[in-house]
């Protein structure tokens, strides 16, 4: 059973601009946002069978809704994020407190090592072994992966992100439970593209079109054979279906105003 940490969008808004998607002028409709978020929760709980763990949102922290950036969790250990932007650094104590309260063994990184949690550190679901992939250059610091690799005794392959619209790894890279990778290669530098090709065989690489990549088709939640992704990505859905996955499109355009979608709104706890 998959447990996902989520945070209701009570205080969600675009209150600052820290990625190319955010425009202060592009105001969030709170009702629509809440409806879309609830729709996502319903699909996750009812269609996918995930167990949702809700944390309490905090006023003045509009991006806390994106729990993927709370940190990274492996077993009973959690490493809380250290955000690059001061606007989001204020979320850190809330996430850390939540991990502690839940009984996680909390390991903190040095203050000068930016690391934005499961937004940038991803592995193939249900894979106990195998490498993790760490996006760097936009938000997380490559040196954080050295420390995390030691902490979790894992191979972590850093991948350089070169397009600021795909500022977290989970915006352009989605490992699936069957070993396939849904991704948008243009978001990576040539070395990362080569490494991905070496790690994921050609038949397993599902390349998303630019149009759908910009709709955050890769910001999808994979639980078993279910993939929950933002609505408006028919080609990605076809790709998934041909590999035996059941796609669940969910309208999440209110959250795209802040540069986030389905995956950003969840944190896998197991």
């Amino acid at each position, binding site marked *: 059973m998959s447990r996902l940490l989520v945070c209701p969008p009570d205080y969600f808004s675009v209150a600052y601009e820290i990625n190319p998607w955010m425009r202060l002028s592009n105001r969030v409709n709170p009702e629509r946002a809440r409806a879309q978020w609830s729709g996502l929760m319903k699909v996750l709980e009812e269609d996918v069978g995930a167990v949702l763990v809700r944390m309490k949102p905090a006023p003045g922290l509009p991006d806390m809704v994106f729990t993927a950036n709370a940190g990274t969790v492996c077993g009973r250990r959690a490493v809380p994020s250290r955000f690059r932007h001061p606007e989001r650094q204020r979320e850190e104590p809330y996430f850390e407190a939540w991990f502690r309260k839940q009984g996680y063994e909390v390991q903190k990184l040095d203050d000068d090592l930016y690391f934005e949690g499961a937004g940038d550190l991803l592995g193939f679901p249900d894979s106990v072994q195998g490498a993790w992939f760490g996006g760097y250059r936009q938000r997380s610091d490559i040196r954080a992966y050295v420390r995390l*690799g030691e902490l979790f005794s894992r*191979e972590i392959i850093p991948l350089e992100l070169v397009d600021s619209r795909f500022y977290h790894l989970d915006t352009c890279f989605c490992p699936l439970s069957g070993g396939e990778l849904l991704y948008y290669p243009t978001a990576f530098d040539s070395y990362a593209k080569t*490494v991905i090709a070496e790690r994921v065989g050609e038949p397993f690489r599902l390349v998303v079109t630019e149009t759908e990549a910009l709709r955050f088709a890769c910001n999808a939640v994979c639980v078993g054979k279910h993939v929950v992704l933002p609505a408006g990505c028919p080609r990605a859905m076809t790709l998934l279906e041909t590999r035996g996955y059941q796609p669940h499109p969910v309208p999440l355009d209110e959250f795209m105003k802040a540069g986030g979608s389905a995956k950003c709104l969840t944190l896998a706890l197991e």
Partner: protein
Amino acid sequence: MATIQETVVLHGHIIDSLILAKVLDTILMMGGTFDLQDVRIGVTRDEPSRARIVVRAASTELLAEILEAIQPHGASVERERDCSVELAPADGILPDQFYATTHLPTQVRLNGQWVEVEGIEMDVAIVANRSRPSAKAVPMHDVKQGDAVVVGRDGVRVLPLERPKEQDVFGFMEAQVSAERPHGHIIADIARRMRALRDGQGRGKVLLSGGPAIIHAGGREALAWLIEEGFVHVLFAGNALAAHDMEAALYGTSLGYGLTAGRSVPHGHEHHLRTINRIRAIGSIEQTVSTGVIQDGIMAACVRRHVSVVLTGSIRDDGPLPGVITDTLAAQSAMRAALPGVGLALLVASTLLSIATGNLLPATVPTVCVDVNPSVPTKLADRGSFQAVGLVMDAASFLRELARELGYKA
């Protein structure tokens, strides 16, 4: 100027992720170079790897740009330590673990700053001064009790030679010795350097370290001409070269052999002794020239052109001539003192003096070793003067051809 360098470390899963490849490519693409040191590759996939990379660039600015470009990929500047020093226990005695120099440009780290070691030469120690901060190369016998001598290898770095801008024979920067190669282009390159050092903007001195075979073989006029024309500024020689040069001026012989007649003259073997005795009576070579007793030749040209002359003695010397330094350590110091500013060294027809001079020269000074015996340039290279270009040829032919390249008409 020497290349600037900084050591960076790269740690983590850097091999399969191509991060190491990316960092090295970036250094090269930006115009830097690197030395990959201490690469430790993780044994298992989970185990991280580690690489130490010495990054080099032609300027501080370029190095800073390269470091800035590779830091986001995890290359962090290694935290380096200051060099360690111990006080010399007595005059002329170094601490046990003293750092022994090479003749390559060397820097030591003092108070977190890299400082150039002044007067670098091979096989000496480094004395550091933290308060200035500065460091200089000091031979064992010159060390004074209480001098702060660099020990161990921490905080010491040796820089490789930069390839010279000039596309000439010195650009190869490796000892080349062959009797079976044409000499013409090498001599033409040497002449070009000498003209540039005499007339060019960044003027420098030419050192000639020579043996008496120059006189015996008939190279005296060509060398005297080179000196008169201002192409040679420092002369290292022994008692014999000076004695036979002045013997030739007074008697027309070299070691009793008629230089023009080409045969030995009766009682000619006494000529060099009588020459030495005469000059000893006058008091100095300078006075001998200034009073007109000697009017031509190498020593006369040196006096007229104010060439720095260091005459060093040896056990088999007759006389010796006034001015010959018979204390070997004093001679070594006098040679050392004449080296600053030397931009080209010609070591001609003298085994021991060539090696002695080679030992004192930093590797940055282009050096030519000329001898009919190929073992001399080979020996010089074996003793560490790898930058010396070896020319296997007769001293007189070399000097004449060199002088002709520079306009000598005879």
